[in-house]
């Protein structure tokens, strides 16, 4: 398949533009983990980590690691002024209770209704792990999924119905991929933007559910 879409870094860069100033935000594994580096300088967002940090800053510099201060991926991090520490229960009061403004997770499949599958590939080796993904998906005020538009074998990841084990039903609000920005609306999937050089018809070809759009679809801007 020859096509020119965004790189993973560029998907992260585009997703960072969805963050409003002052937002409380949880970032998941994969592409979401790249987003913090692209938050526009003029705004402050408060990153939540489900192991009990609000106001998480960048990774700790070499030699300055504190191994009591790690993110959910076990990486030593820092905190910004105004940060708070709390227990796992309080961390998930924040997720499940609807207190986080935006959560951005990786995805294996997203359905046309906004169902998300992102925690286990059927048949893959290992027990898998749910982690905090189900609590986060259910409670997020706004859930964005960042992922490659298609699987490595070219198959659609935006599908009519998920075939992988579900994380949560009807939870996704927006999907950002290497090809497009798509909003999950009551009437179906709405194509909001396409990557430079990609036509709406091409995006549709790589997407199972029908995409809605009118007239000229704007290009994905990165800043």
């Amino acid at each position, binding site marked *: 398949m020859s096509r020119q879409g965004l790189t993973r870094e560029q998907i992260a860069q585009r997703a960072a533009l969805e963050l409003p100033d002052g937002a409380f935000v949880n970032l998941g594994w994969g592409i979401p983990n790249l987003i913090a580096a692209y938050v526009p300088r003029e705004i402050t967002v408060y990153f939540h980590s489900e192991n009990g940090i609000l106001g998480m800053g960048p990774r700790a510099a070499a030699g300055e690691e504190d*191994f009591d201060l*790690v993110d*959910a991926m076990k990486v030593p991090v820092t905190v910004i002024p105004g940060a708070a520490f709390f227990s796992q229960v309080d961390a*998930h009061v924040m997720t499940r209770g609807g207190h986080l403004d935006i959560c951005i997770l990786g995805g294996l499949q997203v359905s046309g209704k906004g169902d998300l599958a992102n925690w286990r590939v059927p048949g893959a080796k290992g027990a898998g792990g749910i*982690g905090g993904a189900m609590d986060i998906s259910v409670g997020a005020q706004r859930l964005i999924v960042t992922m490659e538009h298609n699987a490595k074998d070219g198959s659609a990841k935006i599908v009519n119905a998920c075939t992988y084990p*579900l994380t949560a039903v009807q939870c996704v609000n927006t999907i950002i991929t290497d090809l497009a920005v798509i909003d999950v609306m009551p009437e179906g999937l709405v194509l909001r933007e396409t990557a430079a050089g990609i036509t709406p018809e091409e995006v549709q070809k790589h997407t199972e559910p029908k995409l809605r759009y009118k007239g000229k679809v704007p290009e994905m801007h990165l800043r």
Partner: protein
Amino acid sequence: MEPKNNIYSSVDAAVADIPDGATIMFGGFGGAGFPNNLIQGLARQGARNLKVISNNCGTGDGELGILFKNHQVTRVVAAFPGPGAKHFQEQLDAGEIELELVPQGILCERMRAYGAGIPAFYSPVGVGTEVARGKEERLIRGKRYILEDALGADCALIKAHRADRLGNLVYRKAARNFNPIMATAAKLTIVEVDKIVEVGTLDPEAIVTPSIFVDRIVQAKGLRFV
């Protein structure tokens, strides 16, 4: 009333009477806040057929890894066993271990409920997924919820930063995680701390786990597996 002497001189003494078949909660997340000295003590003590409740299942031989390596565990309740949980994975594949995978926020909320005397609660997490299998579903004000059981244990092994001699605890940064919740949900809570201090030296405003939840205290030099 004289305060009972909860302070143990060694981790081995603190875990000596944990029996075979015990259900044990282990604090810790992502390398921070694991009671690594108590885990090593339990490995030396050799109790078997243990039922483990923990977010993760070890990193190589580190953290909980040693208990799996020694074949001391037969059942696990976890949210994210973890890519480094080599010994756990091998025994799961071999059918030696039974696994109950639980969403992380539900894992700790079930403990919180148990500690608070709530037998079960309705939750939106996992509705429509395999987590809901076999659970009662109920519509409350138009939304779907599933019934989750409280989760308790015979014993909680936890890690804190400081304890006073009564067992009031403070934690350090993200090493708090599951530890204070587990302290409330077990019949016997054993804590390892970096330092035991005199009663009255911890600011009452800053105490996270009040001593009522703590049974045994042992001071041990921090042991970390990175």
